[in-house]
């Protein structure tokens, strides 16, 4: 078992994948991790579409400039905005849905890394087009895409700041 900090520090944004497919069971395991993420007000208004079909993938890729490296699978994380408005009001609609999508994405990526898979979270896509191509009604908004596959590269870690960005008790920057 890999400890959680090792997983967090080991995960990289992978933008080149091997062509081998990812098993359906593994993809479902990633979704299990996603739905156990925190959700603002316990709204759980997220919706997920897993894409593995090459024809569908091609269409999504054409409207997603940030989707790079030919992954064999992507997980589209969307939010039911009507439901978010009902459950979470203005804050739920405008902010919490995005936070929930991001936290679900992180759970997916960390679980994937622990299973020797590479991932990259992508926001550079045309949301309305992705929604249209996947058959979403207008109320469901794609917010993030996570690419998933066996990594074909081993990217190095960008440096992280630590002491320069953390204070105890009060800010003294």
């Amino acid at each position: 078992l890999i400890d959680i900090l090792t997983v967090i520090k080991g995960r990289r944004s992978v933008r080149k994948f091997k062509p081998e497919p990812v098993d359906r069971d593994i993809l479902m395991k990633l979704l299990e991790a996603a739905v156990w993420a925190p959700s603002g007000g316990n709204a759980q208004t997220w919706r997920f579409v897993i894409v593995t079909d090459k024809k569908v993938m091609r269409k999504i890729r054409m409207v997603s400039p940030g989707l790079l490296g030919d992954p064999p699978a992507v997980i589209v994380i969307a939010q039911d905005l009507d439901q978010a408005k009902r459950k979470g009001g203005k804050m739920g609609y405008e902010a919490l849905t995005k936070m929930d999508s991001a936290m679900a994405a992180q759970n997916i990526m960390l679980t994937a890394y622990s299973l020797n898979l590479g991932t990259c979270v992508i926001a550079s896509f045309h949301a309305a087009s992705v929604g249209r191509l996947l058959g979403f009604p207008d109320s469901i908004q794609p917010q993030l895409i996570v690419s998933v596959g066996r990594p074909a590269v081993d990217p190095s870690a960008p440096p992280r700041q630590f002491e320069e960005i953390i204070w105890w008790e009060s800010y003294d920057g």
Partner: protein
Amino acid sequence: MMDRTGLEERIFELVSYIAVSARNLLEEPARYGPLRLVDTASRLIDIIEKEGVASKRLTMIRQKIEEGKYTAMGTEEEFQAFLESLVLLLVEQIERESE
């Protein structure tokens, strides 16, 4: 006559990539602009290579882009250095044309 279906599809993919990039770049980080431009150049070279229009200099430029384009995710200095070196590589090739 050569079957151009595959070529048309790849050009359509590239055109779509360029158009969606143009739309999204209105709101995206500024450095994504140069990244999309050099990535477009790489994709274009890849398309014509698959059509048999290969050349040593184009292959070299595509490889250079593929090796360096993700410095866009690093520091500004790294990305700038990569773009500068790409331009210098092109200039070398331009100079050779007139020899």
